[in-house]
């Protein structure tokens, strides 16, 4: 049994995702408590040089295989299961992302490891791993104790600052042999589909006015657009708006959309589901309008208004214009 804290690195199109650094930063702190090392697990093909960007880790375990060139729920889970089986780390942190969802529960079953998901915090408490999950649409936090001497926690992106984990350096890279039959999978990667381009890049905007389901109908969109214009910003949205095809996918903020960090994020009729908050909580200033005083958006907002957006938005636009 080891006291190491493992972090599964997530990457897409040759780029390590920020969530990896968030977890590395946290892992440093945790490894300090457990007295183990921070080990980053990097799986891929021809991306060994990425290990250099994982300087916050003491060691990088690198598994190279053609079947790992692109993320694949089956080959990646097999590979990770193999690595965890060999190393039995004290704790493994996996991003609770689209990719991580396919890994964490899989290794929990394959390797018979306890798993707690949707974590926003992880601690050692009297030698036990304690994870805090954000459940019930962000309305309830649940603190779980994980048993045994090896366990897995999947962590929501945006839970920890990425800076702490962003260290260049040259951690020891240890290449791990891939398990047999890694390319014999029942899931086969075909290709990546890029979002249609040509629209405003909301990640590059200083000011975003973001609309949610509270807007009720597509017809009300121009009203919010006018506010965005008056503020000199762009329109973004929660997912239902994109699902309804009222705005293109490129305007979606959140887990399955884009992560944004504008100077001002103005949330209009957005409840603040964790998947949405994940994409905007790092904004410098967040103002939210929502008629429900209990809406979780107010937990991340700096200023809140519990009035009808149909009253406040036009009033504000008018004042800004005059």
């Amino acid at each position, binding site marked *: 049994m080891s006291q190491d804290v493992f972090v599964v690195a997530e990457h897409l199109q040759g780029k390590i995702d920020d969530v990896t650094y968030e977890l590395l930063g946290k892992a440093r702190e945790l490894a300090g408590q457990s007295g183990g090392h921070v080990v980053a697990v990097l799986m891929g093909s021809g991306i060994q040089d990425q290990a250099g960007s994982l300087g916050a880790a003491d060691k990088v375990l690198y598994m190279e295989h053609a079947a790992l060139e692109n993320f694949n729920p089956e080959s990646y889970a097999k590979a990770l299961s193999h690595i965890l089986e060999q190393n039995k780390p004290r704790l493994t942190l996996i991003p609770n992302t689209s990719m991580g969802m396919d890994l964490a529960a899989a290794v929990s079953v394959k390797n018979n490891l306890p798993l707690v998901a949707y974590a926003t915090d992880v601690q050692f408490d009297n030698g036990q791993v304690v994870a805090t999950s954000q459940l019930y649409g962000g309305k309830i936090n649940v603190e779980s104790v994980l048993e045994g001497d090896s366990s897995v926690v999947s962590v929501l992106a945006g839970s920890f600052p990425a800076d702490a984990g962003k260290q260049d350096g040259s951690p020891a890279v240890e290449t791990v042999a891939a398990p047999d039959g890694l390319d014999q999978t029942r899931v086969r990667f075909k290709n990546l589909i890029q979002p249609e381009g040509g629209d405003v890049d909301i990640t590059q905007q200083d000011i975003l006015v973001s609309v949610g389901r509270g807007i*009720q*109908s*597509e*017809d009300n969109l121009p009203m919010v657009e006018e506010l965005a214009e008056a503020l000199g910003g762009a329109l973004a949205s929660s997912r239902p708006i994109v699902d309804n095809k009222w705005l293109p996918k490129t305007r979606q903020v959140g887990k399955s959309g884009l992560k944004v960090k504008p100077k001002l994020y103005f949330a209009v009729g957005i409840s603040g589901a964790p998947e949405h908050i994940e994409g905007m909580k790092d904004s410098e200033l967040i103002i939210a309008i929502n008629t429900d005083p209990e809406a979780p958006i107010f937990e991340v907002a700096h200023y809140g208004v519990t009035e009808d957006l*149909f009253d406040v938005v036009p009033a504000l636009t008018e004042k800004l214009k005059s």
Partner: protein
Amino acid sequence: MASNKLSIDPDQIIEKEHVVQEGMDISGQWNRMFEQRVIWDYNTEMLDKVTALEGGESLGYCYQCGQCVPVCPVNLVGDYGPRKIFRRVQLGEDLFQSPLLWQCTTCMNCLRVCPKEVDMIQIMPAVRQEAVLQGYVPEELQQAFENTFDYGNPLGESPKKRAAWTKDAGVPVPIMKEKKKADVLWFVECYPSYHPRGIDASKALARVLNELGVDFGILGVEEKCTCDSQRLAGEIGLFEEFAEQNIKTMKRYKFNKILVTDPHALNALRKEYPKYGGKYEVVHYTTFLAPMLDKLNFTNKLNYKVTFHDPCYLGRHNGEFEAPRQILQALPGVELIEMFRCRENSYCCGGGGGGMWLDGFMADHVSERLSERRVREAVEVGADVLAVCCPYEVSRFEDAVKSTGNEGKLVVRDIIELVVEAMGAN
């Protein structure tokens, strides 16, 4: 389509040397005649689909006199009316999949003037029910149906909070579950239970009932939407589900009559519930209060020019035009002025028959909302208060006051709010 005759077929024009009619030679210099027009030349498939439905029959009675069109509130802001619907179905439009199906607010002004009794109040729900079964239901409406089924109210609010408004009503609002027996069972309904402006009116009525010493109780969390508007929007199953539940609930309690705030509840409880075994004496609060006005002490002079909008389901549907006016006229300082369209010919706020949940849909088919049109009429007659007594209207008209730029000129008040205002503080 087989043969849509928009002009006269040349084959039907016959020139005759002699014209003999009923044994009489009526030949003249000009003997051109038209053969009888064969109305079954139309492919009646689409019309048959409607008239075959129970409730849909009367669409076939239309002889296109067109009386209904100028009185249709939707036609005033769009292109609508029973005659137009008939004609387009006759020409082959499938009403079940047509946007025509969802614009009718079942206001009943057409039936009032129709010599053939083409009854949209029957036709619309019958056809809509089929459309809903086939999956053609506008999304906004679907949401309201789903909310109603899940929570017993179309707003999607917690059923446990149905009586939450009573907490700060300032007066006792007894719950039947504890009280068991009362002279008057007040059926509050959804918007008066949940909508902030509906709640204002509920609190006002609670105060007046207390002031009058009425022995009353409400069903609280046991009350479910009567679903009259959902029924008219085509969800008869939803209506039946909750009618059965409400009737079962009310069976547990003793009361003499039901008092309603909502004319849509009045319509359901009075006309539809008996079909399901629930027979009650039901009164709208205006009818209930009008004879008791002398028991109220009005200390506050209002000085308002008030115009009154007759709710479709109180006036035309249930024949009450006087009580609201009696109340308004009894309030000190109130000058009642009528709009051009009033009483039997009153306009419609647009909320009935499912219109409450078709706002975005309607916007695509009308030049302005019905509520906006009505608000402008109220402003035109110089009113400074638009008085209403249906919970759909307060929110619709207040919104319309804003959207028509009449803020500051006109306010919207439920009659019961004006009563309480006239009663003065405490």
